[in-house]
């Protein structure tokens, strides 16, 4: 038995095994005994760290749903136009699932369970896409266009739906249906289709971005 682990290390090793088991079998498919066996400790030790199975499940969800991706490189390493940044973001996001498909499995489970962590998955993960698409389209669409709000909302949903479906096909199917497609090809193709669908073309993007006037408040330097 591992007796050398410190408290926080032990807690981390329990979380790691619990994440794997809950991701595979769901909340109801796993017992505390099974998790304890996987960590090689007695259930009593496990209960010292988590007061119930629900408590442990919530901790697993909390850990995953608070994981944020950084899109700094997508902005810094491009000329910051809509298309390039969105491709970069999509690549980073898909890679995070590629590195840990449990992120996607657990998110889907929390959605079905009606667990409050679902909204954290949105706030910390999907909202980057929602904000970015909303903001960018808001800047570009004419103000007098009919059903403006719903057009922007639908575009944002469309993109999140495309990415989510690609991830489901790639990581939740028993066999990866997209095995021959690289992550960057996939990201680029999804973004290209999306831009075509919402009627934003590359030429427009370049023109618009080059004349972009940033809406910051400039403070006069004179006193």
């Amino acid at each position, binding site marked *: 038995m591992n007796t050398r682990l410190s408290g926080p290390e032990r807690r981390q090793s329990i979380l790691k095994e619990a994440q794997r088991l809950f991701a595979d079998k769901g909340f109801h498919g796993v017992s505390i005994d099974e998790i304890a066996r996987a960590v090689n400790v007695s259930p009593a030790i496990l209960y010292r760290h988590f007061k119930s199975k629900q408590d442990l499940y919530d901790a697993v969800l909390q850990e995953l749903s608070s994981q944020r991706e950084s*899109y700094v490189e997508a*902005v*810094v390493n491009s000329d910051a136009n809509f298309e390039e940044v969105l491709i970069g*973001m999509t690549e980073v996001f898909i890679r995070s699932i590629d590195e840990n498909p449990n992120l996607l499995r657990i998110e889907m489970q929390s959605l079905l369970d009606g667990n409050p962590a679902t909204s954290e998955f949105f706030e910390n993960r999907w909202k980057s896409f929602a904000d*970015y698409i909303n903001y960018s389209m808001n800047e570009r669409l004419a103000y007098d266009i009919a059903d403006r709000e719903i057009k922007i909302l639908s575009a944002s949903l469309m993109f999140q739906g495309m990415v989510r479906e690609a991830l489901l096909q790639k990581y939740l199917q028993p066999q990866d249906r997209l095995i021959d497609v690289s992550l960057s090809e996939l990201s680029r193709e999804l973004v290209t289709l999306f831009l075509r669908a919402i009627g934003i073309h590359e030429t427009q993007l370049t023109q618009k971005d080059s004349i972009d006037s*940033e809406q*910051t408040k400039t*403070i006069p330097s004179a006193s």
Partner: protein
Amino acid sequence: MSDFDSELDASGLNCPLPILRAKKAIAGLEDGQTLRIIATDPGSVKDFEAFCKQTGNTLLSSGEEGGKFVFMIKKS
């Protein structure tokens, strides 16, 4: 007289928008001028550190004020 040249409020927006808007705002500044940024995304603290490291601009300060994150960046 204010102690910064330009200000950007990115409250309520998740990464990458605060970074993207900061990048554009800095492009409009002269060397040595400063930009003050307000954000609410908890990821922005790490993001602005990485942004300044990668772009060579100076992060003069990074802190919390009234539940929001405030950054001061000098174009360099």
